[in-house]
């Protein structure tokens, strides 16, 4: 029972960080059809920027969080303007490779600036453990779950109620019709990248608190794919559910089965979903079939 509770909490908290990264992926995919392989590196950027702001400059953490989000958004806007925009309308392979190239650059830069060895900094999520019955749960992980959910809810509300959010849905629906209604596509793409970076940066900051500041954070970028395929490529709700399911699956297989199976289970799920229900749990049922 104690094991089960611990695994559940660690699985859910990891899953919610996956969900944050996946939500960013979904926002970009929805708006611009770009398959973003840099999601993990945006997370990495968030982790190191908060380390930079809090541990190296010495800002109080509330200000540090703000600065981190702003810097991450600025970086994403620059990426969108300089790299993605010239490639609008190119084939999928180009879009995949350009984000892979970006990912390589970001990773190289972060490593060059901050070095490959793990860094420590004073955690701003509560440290220590909470005892619930027989289980010892990490307080940081427990707290990260509602924070992530709040951010994801905010994203969801953004899509439903704000002007930019509705514009984004319109573009996802029919780009030409949206254009003719006076929606500025470059603006929407910019907003999408900004949101994705903010969401990933928040995930990255929490990850920095939970697992520490290391370059391995970027590895999460790949876990985005099982999550979004399971949840549906164009659904924020799907990202949350997918993140939770994949996070829990990993935690349980890691805890009860072992053999490194937790590393491969998400991809097995991915293949199964692709074979049975390629649009995922909540995705729109339009898919290019052969």
């Amino acid at each position, binding site marked *: 029972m104690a094991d089960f509770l611990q695994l559940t909490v660690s699985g859910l908290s990891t899953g919610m960080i996956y969900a944050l990264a996946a939500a960013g992926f979904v926002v970009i995919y929805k708006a611009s059809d770009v398959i973003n392989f840099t999601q993990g590196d945006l997370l990495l950027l968030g982790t190191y920027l908060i380390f930079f702001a809090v541990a190296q400059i010495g800002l109080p953490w509330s200000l540090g969080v703000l600065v981190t989000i702003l810097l991450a958004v600025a970086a994403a806007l620059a990426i969108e303007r300089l790299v993605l925009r010239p490639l609008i309308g190119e084939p999928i392979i180009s879009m995949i490779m350009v984000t892979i190239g970006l990912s390589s650059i970001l990773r190289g830069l972060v490593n*060059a600036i901050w070095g490959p060895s793990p860094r420590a900094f004073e955690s701003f999520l509560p440290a220590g453990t909470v005892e619930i019955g027989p289980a010892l749960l990490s307080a940081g992980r427990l707290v990260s779950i509602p924070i992530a959910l709040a951010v994801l809810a905010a994203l969801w509300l953004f899509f439903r109620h704000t002007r930019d959010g509705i514009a984004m849905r319109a573009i996802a629906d029919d780009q030409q019709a949206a254009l003719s209604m006076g929606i500025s596509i470059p603006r929407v793409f910019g907003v999408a990248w900004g949101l994705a970076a903010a969401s990933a940066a928040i995930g990255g900051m929490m990850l920095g608190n939970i697992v520490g500041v290391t370059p391995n954070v970027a590895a999460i970028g790949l876990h985005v794919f099982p999550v979004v395929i399971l949840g549906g490529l164009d659904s924020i709700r799907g990202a949350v559910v997918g993140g939770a399911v994949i996070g829990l699956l990993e935690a349980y297989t890691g805890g009860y089965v072992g053999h490194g199976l937790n590393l491969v289970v998400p991809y097995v799920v991915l293949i199964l979903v692709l074979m049975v229900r390629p649009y995922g749990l909540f995705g729109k049922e339009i898919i290019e079939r052969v």
Partner: protein
Amino acid sequence: MSYECGVFHTRYRSDMGLRPRPVQRVRLALFAVAVLVFPFFASPYWLDLANQVAIATVGAIGLNILVGYTGQISLGHGAFMAVGAYAAGLLTLNLGLPWGVSIVLACFLTAAVGIFFGLPSLRLKGLYLAIATLAAQEIVQWAMVNWTALTGGTEAIVLPAPRLFGLRLNSAFNFYWIAVLAAAATALFTANLFRSRAGRAFVAVRDQDIAASVIGVDIFRTKLLAFATSSFFAGLAGALIAFYRSIVTWERFTLEISIVYLAMIIVGGLGTIRGSLFGAALITLLPAFITNAGRALQETAPHVAGLLPYAQQAVFGLVIILFLIFEPKGLSKLWGNVKDYFHVWPFAYRRGSHGE
């Protein structure tokens, strides 16, 4: 296929030849001579790089068959190379097969695995296929590390040196001939493949799959054949690496390798054979150049040396992006521009007007 003014063919045979114009044959001959002479003058360091380029060319042509010619995106090329390397290594080690036999068997085995992982392509396209092959890569990678009984897990497999007539073949100089022969055979096979019915079907599926099926191309069969051919050469590249290094470890066949090979064909030019060679050369030599530049800087700026691996990573990404933005057709197109310029040199009136 380009049509040149001033070149007249009086027979179909010459018109349909692989390299129909004399200047093409001269260029090929010069290149062949350079390749044959190179090892007698090169230092072991450059020979080693040349071997890497030759092996990478085999793999890159293989990937180009699938991605460039057939339009199926694969992020699992590294996994296919792994299958080839492990198969070749284990066949030699456990069954005692001669190295040549196990390389051939490994290629066919990899082709079979390629067909298996190509099955999703029957239902999925574009992005979805890319993600499915990503999953295939991760699953194969996991199997390499965790299927200890077969692969030895994280322990490397050490192979005996391949021998031919008593010669040890895994020295840089001796292996050069094998690697170059393999690269040349791959290039020749592929050039001819795309003059054949099967190869034309690949291109038809890439350009417009529905139209292709309307004119009678069996899409499923064609896609699986493309996966099989592509993985066959991936297996060959993997097996060559195994025997060249005499060691097989999973680290050589991670997702990064799949990405490196995709970068090769993007930078070289999708759907061209010479592009595969150019891309393989550039992407293989790039880290070496950066390392050399770093060594040169080491005396003036010692802390730069520590940054080298990251500089390599960043420059790798930068090269991909620059090519995608400024020359999406890759080095192959640049080479074409150069040829066009000299075609009627010094009269420049045709410059830029001549496309593929």
